[in-house]
C-alpha cells in the first residue's frame, strides 16, 4: 500500500482531530486528498511532526478532547529520533503517531533511508511506546478504531514507495495555516 492510500484510509479518524503532518509529499497528498482546518502541514522542519504534536497534546491533556495525531515518515523520523524519547516521557494518552515507513525519502527522488536496517517500531518500543506493526489498510483501520484514548501509541505502518501523481505543492502561508488551525481549535472548544 502506498502513502496516499494510507492517508485516504485514515481520513475518517483524523478529519476532525488535531493532526500534525510531516513536510513535502505527505503534506501535499493529505491536502490533495482532503484538506481540513485541523491539519497543520509542516512545510519544512523535517523530523518535528511528533515534537509539535507532543507540545500540543501536552497542553491539551485532560481537557476532554480526542486524540492528537502526528503523521511522520521514516526518513523524517530518522532525522529526529529524539522526538520519540522526549515525547514518551510525557505519557500522553491523547497522542497517536502514524509512522508511514516506505523505506525511501519519497520527496527527494526516493533515495533509500536506513529504515530497512533499523526497525523503527522496535526503536519506539524500546523507548516505551505501545507499538503496533501495520501491514494492511484493514489492520490500520482496526487499530485506529480500537485504540482511541489509549495513547501514547505508535502505529508503524509499512508502506511501499511511490507518490500520488497530481498532488500540488502546498503554497499556503504558514501563518495562515496556523491561524486557520487555532480558529478551528477555538470553535471546537467553545461550541
Amino acid at each position: 500500500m502506498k502513502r496516499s492510500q494510507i492517508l485516504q484510509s485514515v481520513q475518517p479518524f483524523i478529519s476532525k482531530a488535531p493532526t500534525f503532518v510531516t513536510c513535502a509529499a505527505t503534506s501535499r497528498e493529505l491536502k490533495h486528498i482532503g484538506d481540513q482546518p485541523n491539519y497543520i502541514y509542516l512545510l519544512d522542519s523535517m523530523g518535528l511532526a511528533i515534537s509539535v504534536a507532543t507540545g500540543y497534546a501536552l497542553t491539551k491533556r485532560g481537557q476532554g478532547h480526542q486524540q492528537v495525531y502526528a503523521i511522520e515518515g521514516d526518513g523524517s523520523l530518522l532525522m529526529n529520533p529524539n522526538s520519540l524519547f522526549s515525547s514518551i516521557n510525557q505519557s500522553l494518552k491523547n497522542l497517536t503517531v502514524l509512522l508511514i515507513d516506505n523505506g525511501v525519502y519519497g520527496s527527494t527522488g526516493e533515495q533509500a533511508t536506513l529504515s530497512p536496517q533499523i526497525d523503527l517500531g522496535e526503536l519506539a518500543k524500546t523507548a516505551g511506546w505501545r507499538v503496533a506493526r501495520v501491514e494492511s489498510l484493514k489492520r490500520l483501520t482496526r487499530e485506529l478504531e480500537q485504540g482511541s484514548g489509549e495513547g501514547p501509541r505508535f502505529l508503524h505502518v509499512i508502506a511501499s514507495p511511490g507518490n500520488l501523481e497530481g498532488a500540488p505543492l502546498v503554497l499556503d502561508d504558514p501563518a495562515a495555516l496556523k491561524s486557520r488551525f487555532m480558529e478551528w481549535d477555538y470553535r471546537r472548544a467553545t461550541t
Partner: protein
Amino acid sequence: MNDHMPAQQAANSLGFKASLGDAVASMEPEVVCHLPSASIAEIIDRVELRASGGGFRVIRSTREEDAVGVLSGVAMAGSLGILLIQDNGLGNSLTALTTLPLAYRLPLLVLCNVRGGLGEYNSMIHHYSQGLPKALESFGLATFWLDRTLPLQAWQEGIIEAGSLAQMSHRPVIGMLNFFGVESLEGSL
C-alpha cells in the same frame, strides 16, 4: 519566595541566577524545555523546583530543534513555552526556529547563556559565538541582551518583558544572557 518580592530582595535571598528562574516561573508558562548548561544550571534547578509545585511542565530535552518543535506545539495550543539553552544550541535549531515559530508566527521565549568572548575557557567556541549575533539578525530573529552593565533587577524585568513581547508580537524572542562579570555585581548586593 513569592512572585511579587522585589527583585533585589529575591536575588539576595536566593542567589542571582535562581532569581532568574523565578522570573521564568512567574510568566506562568505551560512548558519549559531545557538542555544542560553549567552557566544556567541554577536557573534550570530553580525552574524544576518551581515546576514541582504544579502549574507547568518541564521537559529535559535531548536536542534543541526537538524542543523548538515541542514548544511550537504548545504555542499552537495557545500557551507560552520557554526554552533554556546555551547559545551554541541556537546553531542546532536555526532551521527549526525559522521554519516553525518564525514562519508560523508562534510565540516562544528562548533564554541562552552567551558562550565565547571574554571569560570563555573553550577555544573551540569563539568562532561560532562571534558570528552568532549577525546570523540571528540576518534571519530576522528578535534578540535582546542582558549583561553586567545592567542592574540585576533589570535582568528579571527584561526576561519577563521578553516573554510578553514574544506573545504580543507572535514570534520567537531570544534572550542572550551574558554572565561575564556578573559575579562581581552579585557580590555587591
